[in-house]
């Protein structure tokens, strides 16, 4: 190819050089980058010789023919400065260029050798308002004023602000704060407020203190978010203009006092005023007070690890949040008393804001077009955020892993969108287990959690076996391993990430469960072995305590199954699955996963029951005066005799899983029926490979030994077997499952909203399946609509 290239050169090329180039090119064709460069150089030399002005050619041509140099330039080094161009002078090629482009085919690119997907994806689209900051700049515009300039021009007042002006600025600042928490850059929202650039130069006390509070609040919020570390770039911009922040030192501990002082002064002043003026000033006071309590609440979250008791600290936080939430309705009612943003202006308030001040100092690949929230919406956000914080405070009630994890999963579902709420929860939880368990908090917490989950006797400090040094040693090793693997902490922390990122991280988490499962199983079998040893020694009570131990592996497996189920179902929430994939996604939990969960929980309940009975039996024997008969060991014999008031701590969850099982079964069979009925759009077979898709969907489960991965072939067998039934039969099977789900869900007392929603889904789908089974719309092979609006895991099937 290179040879032909050289021979096709225009004839005014010197024949000799062309031949040389051809030879060099031929050598280069099979060689590496360095020889490619030689080719390029050769080519440049040709041109150089050909050109009237060799020096000029070498400067422009060699620079760009040479891939090494190109790489250096595009890598962003200062090797070449675009601003020094043009070197030769501009030649207008507008028409020529367009004509040349029109020769390209649709989809064809003319691209530089270093142009790739990265360059394509990172390019800013000029004149797109979301990406192009430079848009709308008029070259005759003045640069946006800085603080000093604005003061010099008299554009901003530093003293003697009217209450309306203060309300306007405060409301605008809250709006900026909210916009920042929604993921915008600090510079482009909060620091558009010029007052924040130099609070100490403000003479008006209320404004100065408020601005100082905002600046300290920024620092505190940043700390909480950094420590919680559940932020992603799309949630939150950590980096802002730290130079602006650093100018005045943060002293968060003084803020509450300062705010209180100003409030008191203003309240005193109020008393001497007429009622309308008074009301305006009170609106200012309310905002200062709201700021004080919000600030205190958030600041106390940061301080919590140093508190004496978690309960007390959280009580304090809760009190502040309560006052803050009581103030919000008052503030919302007085929004219109403040100065309002000018229509069509980007500034959130007429005075004190310079919206584009940082635009041109931002890195170009930055999110650019910023819309600061409107005031009512901002207060709405704050109101909801305060409510979320209050909800997060409840986390300290959950003192074991099982209930804490449930709380986190629930919290994420409800408050997953707000980065600060998520970070506050992490922070409160970590501090509370630190305060509850001291130095080795996580290990103690996990020990406590296993005990709370299925109370293995070896973890019961009152049980004599717990003092066995050998047992202790094994336990120590296991828990240390749990801590080192971090799997359990990770699961909780992971629930703090935004919903979309959780799925990705769950995949890794599931992988990490495998070594833990192995270790837990080893621990259990060691306990059983020791039970035999102790029995040989005649130590009956130790032997019984150690025997049949499946505590630890059950605990690990249960948590692993939950992660798997959340992973699989999160795909529905994130709308990752195509309709024709629903079948195997619902099949797996139906056939395996939920069954595993139910059996893990049932086993746990049975263990708990057996232990209770054994303990009672023992005490009865002691009362009866010895006679350690075989009844003590025989659990099953003892069971029916016992009273029915036995606690079944996991009953509710088991019932819930039964409902899920029926729903998954219903969906699985419904998808089977719809597919067989020709109502599911399938991908064109040319572009499709179901096995690959199946394997990708279940890829995170492959590294696990338990449950063993299910191969595509196995799935296919099971599905083919199901598909042998007629379409009508399949529809009625599905209907039966939905009916079962309905029965189970109806049996739940005091159902939560989620249960009611699931109930509605089960009922509706039951009807739809029956209708289809009876041959409704038999000729219309349209794909039904799958409406996930009621529940993120299960759709209502709608026939159009």
């Amino acid at each position, binding site marked *: 190819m290179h040879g032909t290239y050289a021979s096709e050169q225009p004839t005014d090329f010197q024949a000799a050089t062309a031949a040389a180039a051809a030879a060099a090119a031929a050598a280069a064709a099979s060689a590496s980058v360095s020889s490619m460069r030689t080719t390029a150089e050769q080519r440049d030399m040709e041109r150089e010789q050909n050109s009237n002005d060799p020096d000029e050619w070498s400067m422009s041509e060699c620079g760009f023919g040479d891939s090494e140099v190109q790489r250096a330039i595009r890598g962003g080094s200062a090797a070449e400065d675009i601003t020094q161009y043009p070197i030769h002078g501009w030649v207008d090629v507008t028409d020529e260029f367009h004509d040349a482009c029109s020769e390209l*085919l649709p989809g*064809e690119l003319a691209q530089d050798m270093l142009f790739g997907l990265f360059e394509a994806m990172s390019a800013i689209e000029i004149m797109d308002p979301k990406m192009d900051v430079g848009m709308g700049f008029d070259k005759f515009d003045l640069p946006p004023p800085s603080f000093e300039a604005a003061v010099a021009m008299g554009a901003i007042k530093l003293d003697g602000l009217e209450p309306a002006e203060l309300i306007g600025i405060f409301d605008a600042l809250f709006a900026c704060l909210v916009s920042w928490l929604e993921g915008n850059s600090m510079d482009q929202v909060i620091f558009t407020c010029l007052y924040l650039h130099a609070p100490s130069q403000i003479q008006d006390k209320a404004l100065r203190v408020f601005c100082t509070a905002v600046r300290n609040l920024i620092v505190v919020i940043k700390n909480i978010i950094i420590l919680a570390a559940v932020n992603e770039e799309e949630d939150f911009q950590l980096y802002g203009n730290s130079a602006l922040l650093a100018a005045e030192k943060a002293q968060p501990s003084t803020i509450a006092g300062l705010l209180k002082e100003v409030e008191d002064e203003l309240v005193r002043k109020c008393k001497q005023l007429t009622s309308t003026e008074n009301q305006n000033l009170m609106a200012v006071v309310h905002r200062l007070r709201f700021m004080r309590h919000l600030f205190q609440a958030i600041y106390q979250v940061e301080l919590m690890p140093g508190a004496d008791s978690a309960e007390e600290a959280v009580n304090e936080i809760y009190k502040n949040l309560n006052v803050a939430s009581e103030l919000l309705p008052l503030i919302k009612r007085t929004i219109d008393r403040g100065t309002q943003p000018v229509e069509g202006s980007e500034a959130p308030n007429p005075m004190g804001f310079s919206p584009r001040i940082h635009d041109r100092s931002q890195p170009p690949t930055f999110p650019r077009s910023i819309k600061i929230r409107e005031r009512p919406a901002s207060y709405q956000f704050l109101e909801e955020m305060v409510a979320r914080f209050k909800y997060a405070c409840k986390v300290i009630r959950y003192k074991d892993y099982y209930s804490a994890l449930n709380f986190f999963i629930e919290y994420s579902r409800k408050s997953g969108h707000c980065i600060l709420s998520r970070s506050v929860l992490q922070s409160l939880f970590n501090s509370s287990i630190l305060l509850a368990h001291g130095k080795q908090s996580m290990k103690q917490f996990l020990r406590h959690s296993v005990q709370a989950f299925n109370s293995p006797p070896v973890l019961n400090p009152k049980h004599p076996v717990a003092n066995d040094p050998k047992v202790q040693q094994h336990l120590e090793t296991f828990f240390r391993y749990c801590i080192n693997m971090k799997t359990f902490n990770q699961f909780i922390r992971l629930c703090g990430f935004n919903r979309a990122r959780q799925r990705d991280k769950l995949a890794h988490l599931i992988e990490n469960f495998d070594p833990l499962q192995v270790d837990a199983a080893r621990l259990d079998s060691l306990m059983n072995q020791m039970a035999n040893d102790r029995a040989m020694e005649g130590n009956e009570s130790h032997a019984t305590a150690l025997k049949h131990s499946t505590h630890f592996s059950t605990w690990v497996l249960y948590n692993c199954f939950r992660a798997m189920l959340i992973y699989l179902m999160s795909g529905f929430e994130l709308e990752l699955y195509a309709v024709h994939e629903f079948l195997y996604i619902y099949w797996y939990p139906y056939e395996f996963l939920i069954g595993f969960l139910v059996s893990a929980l049932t086993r746990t309940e049975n263990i708990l029951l057996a232990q209770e009975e054994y303990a009672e039996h023992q005490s009865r024997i002691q009362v009866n005066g010895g006679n350690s008969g075989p009844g003590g060991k025989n659990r099953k014999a003892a069971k029916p005799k016992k009273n029915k008031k036995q606690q079944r701590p996991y009953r509710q969850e088991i019932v819930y899983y039964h409902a899920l099982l029926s729903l998954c079964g219903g969906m699985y069979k419904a998808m089977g029926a719809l597919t067989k009925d020709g109502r599911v759009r399938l991908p064109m077979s040319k572009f499709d490979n179901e096995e690959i898709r199946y394997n990708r969907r279940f890829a995170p489960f492959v590294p696990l030994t338990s449950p063993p991965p299910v191969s595509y072939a196995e799935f296919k067998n099971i599905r083919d077997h199901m598909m042998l039934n007629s379409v009508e039969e399949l529809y009625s099977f599905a209907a039966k499952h939905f009916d079962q789900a309905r029965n189970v869900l109806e049996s739940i007392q005091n159902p939560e909203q989620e249960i009611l929603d699931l109930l509605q889904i089960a009922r509706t789908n039951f009807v739809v399946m029956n209708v289809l089974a009876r041959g409704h719309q038999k000729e219309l092979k349209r794909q039904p609509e799958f409406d996930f609006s009621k529940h993120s895991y299960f759709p209502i099937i709608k026939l159009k």
Partner: protein
Amino acid sequence: MNPPPPPPPSAPSASEPFRITTNAPQMLDANLTPGRRKLQKWLGRVLRIVITDGRVLVGFFNCTDRDANIVLSMCAEYLVEGQEPRLLGNVMVAKKHIVSLNIDEPRTSTIL
């Protein structure tokens, strides 16, 4: 400009569904149409684009397509030419925003 009759190799073949014209030395194609050859020559050179709102963008010409959407790398944005520019990195300019195009090259060079 008087373009010669449409070139024969324009139909995408099965083995080459997406054509690419590039200046990469190992992929040089001898049978380029004049327009493609021109584009190939300009790739990697410095291009100046005046856009509809009066701004001037100067950057290395990286990529274009049939619709004359242009990607520039290491682009500098001038509100007023001659004044301090702002460096933008990679930018994409759609055809509808292009007013004029200039390439940095010696006026005399009409070869290739």
